[in-house]
């Protein structure tokens, strides 16, 4: 049976349609998760083009292997797990550990830095509110960027994506105790970097 709309359809059900090879189901899964996945990857690699390539690689890998999805797990966990693996592999290859919200750490010229920068626009805020919001966001982004990649993934999954410790352990393929330690240390480091926020 074909749904008229996927609005009220669960991820698991959309996956079933995707497993039948339905393009609209694939598009729905991309629509639901392109921004969370891209955001997680961008916050880990801090480069627009690289994040896009890695996000694309993630979705291609997941959707081409959709038959291997096990419905006892959350689809989003499986997706984030693959995104994290691909990103960590990339970071290990490239050893990119520092970031700038203004642009890629690899940017050599100002033009290149602008080209790789992310512009976040928001609606409904006054220019002052938007400026403050952006400044706070930029501080947070800079602080996250100073963390080790493993800490970044854990803290983002915990505080941005609202995953439980168990789910994070499953996603990043680390023991539960290690995940708790990473998150604890990441919080400590963020406290130090963002002292004036307290």
């Amino acid at each position, binding site marked *: 049976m*074909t*749904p*008229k*709309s*996927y609005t009220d359809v669960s991820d698991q059900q959309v996956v079933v349609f995707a497993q*039948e*090879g*339905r*393009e*609209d189901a*694939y*598009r*729905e899964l*991309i*629509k639901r998760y*392109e*921004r*969370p996945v*891209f*955001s997680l990857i*961008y916050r880990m690699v801090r480069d*627009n*083009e690289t994040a*896009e390539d890695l*996000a*694309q690689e993630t*979705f*291609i890998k997941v*959707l*081409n292997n959709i038959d291997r999805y096990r419905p006892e797990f959350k689809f989003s966990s499986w997706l984030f797990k693959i995104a994290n693996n691909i990103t960590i592999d990339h970071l290990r290859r490239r050893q990119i550990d520092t970031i700038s919200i203004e642009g890629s750490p690899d940017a050599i010229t100002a*033009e*290149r830095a*602008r*080209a*790789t*920068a*992310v*512009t*976040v*626009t*928001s*609606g409904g805020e006054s220019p002052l509110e938007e400026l403050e*919001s952006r400044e*706070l*966001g930029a501080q*947070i*982004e800079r602080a996250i960027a100073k963390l080790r990649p493993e800490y970044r993934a854990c*803290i*983002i999954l*915990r*505080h*941005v994506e*609202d995953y*439980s410790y168990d789910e994070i352990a499953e996603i990043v393929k680390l023991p539960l105790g290690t995940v708790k330690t990473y998150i604890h240390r990441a*919080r400590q480091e*963020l*406290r130090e970097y*963002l002292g004036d*926020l*307290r």
Partner: protein
Amino acid sequence: MIEHDFDEDFVPIAAELQRLPYLSPSRDFADRVISRIDRLQPAQGVAPVIASRHLELQQGGQQAVVRRRGGGLVRGTAKAVVGVGLLAAAAFMFFEIDVLTAILSAAASQYAFAIAAVGTQLGALVLGSETIAFLQAGALAAVLLYLTLAVGLFGGYAAIRTAAHIAKRKAA
């Protein structure tokens, strides 16, 4: 909302973390992913979904847009059927066509799907996939190329028929 499992002094930071916006990839992200997914069937019932975008990602450079050519085989089949039909009709109108030719034309129409599939593969092998993609794009130049091919086919068929007719006369 996750449970509160951290010290009070982390609360404002946690609040800021939760307020971090999602960032969006480029607009053609889904298309680029879909173009590289195997085993797809065309969409049915649900219109292609376009994500609402409150957040925009500034793209500094040009993005290579890979267009999907879904339904290319169907279009090719339809064109083949129409082409064969036109050729058969022209053959009936301008030549004394025999029953065998009519049957062959009908068979070609019936098996157009298989012929188109094989033809597409052979065409990709001989002409290259870029040329095939160009032909499927339906540009004016492609139409002219189709017409040239059709005229060539038609002319070749006519020449063979004429040669056979002359040979038959001489033999008689």
